[in-house]
Every structure is written in C-alpha cells, then in structure tokens.
C-alpha cells in the first residue's frame, strides 16, 4: 500500500474542472485489500510489553525517553501486563531461574506476537557462559529480530524495531479462523543484515581517531 503525508502548502489544490466530490474522494478514500490494510495497521501499532531483565533494559528505557523517542515509530504504548501487549523485548540476560517466568509471560502475550532479542546475553548468552544463564533466549522462544550489542545502543534497538516492523508489514495472516488457509505467509524472505550491510561496512577504510572527541 502506498501512502504518505504531505504538508498543506504543497498538497495539490483542487483542479479547475474537477468537482469537489472528486477531490474529497481523492483525499479520503483509499482502495486497498483488507489483508494489506491489516498488515499495515499491525506494523505501525506494536504494543510492547514492559519487561526487562538487566542492563539492556536501561538502554531500552532510554529508547523510550526524549532523545530517542520510540513513539515516532508507533510503538510506545508500553503495557504493564502481557495480556495487553503483542511484542516482548527480551532485554537482558535470561537466567535459568527466570526462564520459566519468561516462558509464561510469552505464552500470555496476545496473538499475533513478536519477540525482539536485545543484547548479547539474550542472543546467545554473550559473555556469560556460566551455569546460571540460558545460552540465548531462542533455546525456548521463537525470536524475530536479534539486536546485537552489550548493551545495544538505543539506536540499535530502534533499528531492530524498524526491521521488525518491515517484516510484519510483509506478513499476511488469515483474517479469521474460517477464512483462508491457516498459518503465516511471509511475502518476502527477511534478509540477513550482515549480507545487506556488509559492502557498506567494508567500504569504511578510514576510522575516526579515538584521540579526539
């Protein structure tokens, strides 16, 4: 679906000869398939669950506050209970003692639901290959986006969120249990960011010296 905002000054004025009705329709009516509309709505209205485990949660909270302002991406309705949320950011280390609790919280999220794994610990255990830590939350939850870093910068989480939104926008789900075939249809495969961004990263030959601010 193609849709954009335009400012009042640059918006096309009603054309001479066209009726007011035509203009009204042009501005207010969109022709779109229902499933595309739903996907677009899902993509832009993620309700994250207020959930944090450790250090990463501080950076996640930073992403909510003024400078980074998660609200710009329509994902700021932080819910205190999983039953009102549809996205969980596993922000921090997943501990053996905490894992059953995380599982239960995930089970209580509303369908359709998504998981962002934030930070090295949640991705793979990170620097904590230790008896009390689960080596990655994907040992017991399906993960949609992995955000790297220890902890990731708030910007990295925002990028992860945008990737998730992009992916949600491409997903088509049955509109009801009686309509369509069941199951998620991924319109396009999600691409590996390492592959997409690789050339750009390698192209950087001169890095800023750490001797200057």
């Amino acid at each position, binding site marked *: 679906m193609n849709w954009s905002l335009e400012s009042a000054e640059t918006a096309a004025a009603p054309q001479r000869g066209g009726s007011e009705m035509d203009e009204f329709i042009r501005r207010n009516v969109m022709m779109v398939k229902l499933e595309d509309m739903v996907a677009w709505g899902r993509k832009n209205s993620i309700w994250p669950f207020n959930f944090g485990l450790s250090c990463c949660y501080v950076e996640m909270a930073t992403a909510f506050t003024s400078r980074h302002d998660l609200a710009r991406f329509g994902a700021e309705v932080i819910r205190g209970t999983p039953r009102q949320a549809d996205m969980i950011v596993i922000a921090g280390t997943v501990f053996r003692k905490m894992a059953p*609790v995380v599982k*239960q919280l995930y089970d209580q999220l509303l369908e359709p639901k998504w998981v962002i794994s934030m930070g090295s610990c949640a991705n793979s255990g990170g620097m904590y290959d230790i008896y009390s830590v689960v080596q990655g939350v994907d040992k017991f939850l399906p993960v949609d986006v992995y955000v790297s870093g220890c902890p990731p910068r708030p910007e990295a989480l925002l990028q992860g969120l945008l990737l998730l939104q992009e992916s949600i926008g491409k997903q088509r789900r049955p509109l009801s249990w009686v309509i369509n075939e069941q199951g998620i249809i991924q319109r396009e495969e999600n691409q590996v960011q390492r592959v997409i961004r690789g050339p750009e990263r390698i192209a950087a030959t001169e890095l800023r010296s*750490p001797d*200057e601010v």
Partner: protein
Amino acid sequence: MRVPSAVSVTENLNAPVGVAVVEYLRAVFGDNILHEQVTCDRIPTLWFAREDIQHALTLVREQSFAGKRFEMLLDLTAIDERVRVNRTGQPASEFTVVYHLMSFSGNSDLRLKVPLFDDDLHLPTATVLWPNANWYEREVWDMFGIRFDGHPNLYRLVLPPTWEGHALRKEHPARATEMDPFTLDDAQTDIQQEALKFKPEEWGMKRASEDSEFMFLNLGPNHPSVHGAFRIAVQLDGEILVDAVPDIGYHHRGAEKMGERQSWHTFIPYTDRIDYLGGVMNNLPYVMAVEKMAGIEVPERVKVIRVMLSEMFRICSHLLFYGTFAQDVGQLSPIFYMFVERERIFNIIESICGARMHPGWFRIGGVAQDLPQGWERRVRELLDFMPARLDEYDSMVLNNGILKRRTQGVGVYTTQEAFDWGVTGAGLRATGYEWDMRKQRPYSGYENFEFDVPIAVNGDCYDRCAVRVEEMRQSLRIIKQCVDNMPTGDYKSSHPLTTPPRKEKTMQDIETLINHFLSVSWGPVIPPNEVSMSIEATKGINSYYLISDGNTTSYRTRIRTPSFAHLQMIPAISRGFMVSDLIAIIASIDFVMADVDR
C-alpha cells in the same frame, strides 16, 4: 595451637581500634586463636575454631574497644580451600568461613575465619547477633553447602530451589556449555513454576489471625515497580502490610565463579555489569585490589581520570534513581527530563571510553588510553548546563507536595537499624550518620578534593532521595576540580604487572617483548595474597575480596555489594505500611538486581 607469624597482625596498623580488638581477643582466647594471618590490606585476620566463633563474635559485637564498637557485619562468605596451594601458616581447612566486621566509629575492620572440613560442614549461626547475617548465611549454604546451626530459614537464596550441587564449590561446573543443554518444555516449566510458588508456612507465616484472614500478594519477578527481576511476597491484612519476604536469585550471573575463570585482566568487563548503573566505578575497587596485591602505584593522572569518570557515573546512576523514584510514586514526567542529562553524560563518557554503559575502561595499573583532545570542553559544557537543571528538578520533584506526602515518614529507620542490616551509602547518611568512604578512607586521591558529605535527619524515603540529589551537586564539584587540576603524565604505570604493559620498549629488547606477550596472552601473574578493597559506590559500600594463589586467575573473588544488604531490610522497614508505601520504599532504596545477585 597458635602459629606465630613472621609479622604481627597489629604491626603497622594505624587504627587504634584494630589493635585494641586484637589484643582483647588475644587476652580472652589466648592459644585458642588458631592463627593470626597477615594480609596485604592490613585488616587483622584471626582464625577461630568452630567452637569459639560464636563467643568471639558476641564479644566483638558487644564490647567496645578503645571506646569504639564494631557496628556492622559487612560481609560473610566462604572459601573452598581444597585446591589452594599457597596457604603457608594457615590452619588446615577445606572450607573457610570468613566474617568481615566493620567499625564505623573507629574506622577499622576485622576479619575472622573459621576452618571447616568437607565431611562436617556446619557452624553456629550469627543471625542472633546481626540480623543481616540471615541472607549471607543462606547464600553460603546455597553456594558452598555449609550449614548454619540455628538459622531460622536455611533455604537456597540465589539458585533455583530445584538446583543440584553448590555452585561455588570447585567441583561444580562453571560454564553452561559444560553442563547438559538447557531445555524448557511445558512439563519442565510446570515443575519449575511449582518450585517457585510461595508457601507462607515455610516462612512461619499464618494464613489467618484471630480476626482476619490474610491475603498474600505476589509482586514480581516481573513487575514494573520492582526495578528488575526481583520478587517480593507480601502478607496483607486488608491493605496493611503484615510481613514481606523478598525472593532473589532471578538475576544471578555467577560473577564470583566467573572471577575464578577469567584472567585478572579479562575479569574487568564483568565488574562493569555488577552494578550496571555504576559503569567504570565498578572497575575501581577491583583494579585497586589487584594493584594492591601486585604492588602497583598508579600515576596521579590516572587517579584523577578515574575519579572524574566514577563521579560521572555516580551522577548518571543517581539521575536514574531520581527519575524512577518520582515515577514510582506517580510523577511520570521527571524521568524524561533526567534522561536528557544522562544522555549528555553518556556522550562525554562515550567520547572518552568508546562505550556508554559498560566501558570496562580501567586497567590494572592505569586506564585504557589517554583522554582524547578536547575532552575539557565537553565536560565544562556539562558543568555549566547541569546545576540549573538540578535546581529545576528540585522544584519539580523534591518540593512537590504530593511526593512529600507519599514519602515523608515512610520507610523510616535509625542509624542503629542501618548498622544492624548492613546499610551503607545514602541510606545510612539519610539517618544522619556522616560516613563516606571517600572521606573516611580516601582512595584514588579523594583526599585531594573538596567536597561535602550530605546527610539528612529522618531516615525516610524522602531523605534518601534528598541526600542523593545533594550528592549529585557534590559530584559536579569534584568533576570541576578534576577539569581544573588534571595532572599531566602517564595514563598507565610503568610497573611490569600493568596490563596491558607499556609498549614503547617492546620493539627494543626481547625481554620486554616476552613479558608483554605473556602479559597480554596469559595475563599477569599476581603474587599470592589476600586483599579486600572497598569504595563508596553509587549505592553504598562495594567491596572486592580477592584471593590470589599466585596464578593468572583469581582463586576466589568475593564481591560484597550494597544492594544485597539493602534489599534484605525491606520487610523490617515496611511492616505496618500500605502496599503503595511499599512501592515508595522499594524505589527509595535504589538497588539494581545485578548488584544484589551478582
């Protein structure tokens, strides 16, 4: 039998209380003191048999020495000595229990040790003397399997109740990848959840009194106002809180076990993540402890750089506390303002260290690199910008009538109670007791700075907040002095154990090159010793007790964190209040779960 040491424990001891207590214990116990151990931190360390320890602790607790008392049980832990090589002169022991006592009035420490053997691991409890011994003893039981006779609730504290084995024993695997892969099917989830269920009877709680039935409310382990993975089960009569049981261990990252695996150098990043709001300030007690064992003197410039960054992190941590404190009692907006300052400070920290929250930037014998050009300008901008903002926050938060009514007179404790529960930092100062490690035992050159130690009088939630707010102003003062008087010189020491060592000469002679290679690849070898180093961290006294067995890794790393002690106190200060007061109390403590469970 007493084994005479080459050097007396009281020699070179500048605290008269330390001398007095040792002489007193010598007079009472005579040859029953098994050994007087000399450690490089010059804390008198006396070994007692299991039969004598409770008597000795009682005397230390109840007597005064040179007019001063030992008010606090700062730490209680154990050492698995079974594979330790360098134990010259120490009594035979497989597991040693260590008591670290602290005299605030006399500014002195005392360490008592008890040798135990694997087939007979038990000793009398100290909970009858210090209430805060409760959690420490439970932790020792959990981690080492040492039982404390007479302990009221000797359950596991940190590891899940279903755990097998005791994690800090040397035979317990350290890595998750050494153990069976973790799986969590539905049946497992049910078993684990069932084990975590709160059973009031286990805690000696009744389900009803004569006239009412109690309600049990479970907060956590995921609850927006418990600040992390922390759980507290509350017993309620109507809305009045009868009792509470904090349940921790949901954030245990095995940092102490990690210390036995990582080299002295590569453990530094793990310290950052102990009090994860304290950043490089966590590195400080650790690197200073290692430096003390290695005999490294760091250059003046290093000291001032370390102080400056530590104080920045103190402000960052206090700002987060300030915002969340206001948020927890219902003020939603202040935190959005306070994160602006945090971002400014993180910008500076990032331009100096290259990372925001966990730079891991201090090194054994120095810091990672010199300050970048132009750092002063950025710091000065902060110094210009921040005081006005702090004043604005005063009118927004501290002078807010609703906030005052929610927090004044709530969660009150006295100085004596603070000592009994091991409370340090702003929580202790809010009771009117002026104690700050930076003043009382200056480290890293704090003696050269002018700053005040803010105190309050009532010891309630409001005062704890007010003290921290004033501390931010004092931290700004210290940072200003750092900028104005930054010494020139090296950013790392020339001592051979400095890690990584200085590189200038490595390409000139083979000896330095070999040393450099070993120090970087294997890590430095620290001479066998024991040391304890405490600092005034963001939340109270943070102390590292390190034991080197003359190896590239630590033999035992004990991390005494302030939040652990503070959390234990919640039930004692919240009885009789309402649930909403409990939230204010929890917010006012300013804890971080990584600092509790490590």
